[in-house]
């Protein structure tokens, strides 16, 4: 598992999870993934079914590295961007609404 250094990362994950629940596209592809997952489990020999669950675990594990790395890169670039653009409160609010709009929208 990756590191869990900053509470803000955990908080952001929660926020994203809640926002994505409202995203139709995300819901659709999640359901599609689940459908394929169940289909595979159904066709695996009974004694080998655990493989699909192991797959799920390992996918989550490596996904954690990727999402943490991307989050922290975002953080780093956010600072760079703010310094470069001399972000004030108004611009920060704009940036915030920009991201919120992108991930809460129903596609």
């Amino acid at each position, binding site marked *: 598992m*990756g*590191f869990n*250094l900053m509470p*803000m*990362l955990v908080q*952001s*994950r929660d926020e994203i999870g809640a*926002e*994505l629940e409202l*995203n139709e596209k*995300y819901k659709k*592809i*999640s359901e*599609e*993934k689940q459908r*394929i997952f169940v*289909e*595979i489990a159904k*066709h*695996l*020999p009974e004694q*080998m079914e655990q*493989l*699909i669950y*192991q*797959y799920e675990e*390992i*996918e989550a*594990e*490596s*996904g954690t*590295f*990727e*999402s*943490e*790395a*991307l*989050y*922290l*890169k*975002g*953080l*780093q*670039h*956010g*600072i*760079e*961007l*703010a*310094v470069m653009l*001399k*972000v*004030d*409160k108004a611009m*920060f609010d704009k*940036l*915030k609404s920009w*991201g919120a709009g*992108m*991930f809460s929208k129903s596609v």
Partner: protein
Amino acid sequence: MAIRFNEFFIEKTEFDGYMLDLFLNVSDQLIPELAKSKEYTTARDKYVELLEQIEALLPEDKKHLVSELDNAEGNVCSIHNEGLFIKGLQYGSKLARVLKITDSSKEVFVEDEDEEISIIAEFTETVNDLNSKLAEIEASNTLTEHQKALMKENCLSIIRNIRASQVQSFCEYAVRIPFDFGLLSAEQRGEIVSVMCKDVAEITDAEMYHIFSILDKNENGKGGYDGI
């Protein structure tokens, strides 16, 4: 699909314009960084191995489900990762604003580590002076108890502010080498977390120096900041 680190290629993202350039740039940077992490590559190897095992066990007409699952998983992760990237971006800009990071302060904290250490040393000297001052106040025969209490509170308030500044320096230092944290040992991460979780006024100089020394060693071993 946006990005699949496991296959080390990028297809398309939900972003466009400047965000797309930034995201692709970041993804390009992360690929070699992730590849350096043994924990990550082990997990990815295991992932591929499991998919191959599953495919081998499926009936011929169902084998296509494995690549479909891989793609579907990628789609789900991509949206999630893009969301986290945006959140990081927002938090980073907020942090820069709250901490009042400017071009000049960035130079101090990001480009000149020696200067940063000297700033920390200066803070420490001030804290030592203030501690002496506190002892003097305590021993004074001429001050009333009320005056003593006020002066002590003033000194403590300055010490707390200095400690807060040190923690801020640490945070600024930390965010500039984000992924390198992933390459620290569990013990080192634990040490950093335990210090970060403390009340800023309770963090000792030794702890601050220790954390900086962990980060210095880590960064020197892994290369420097390569932001945009």
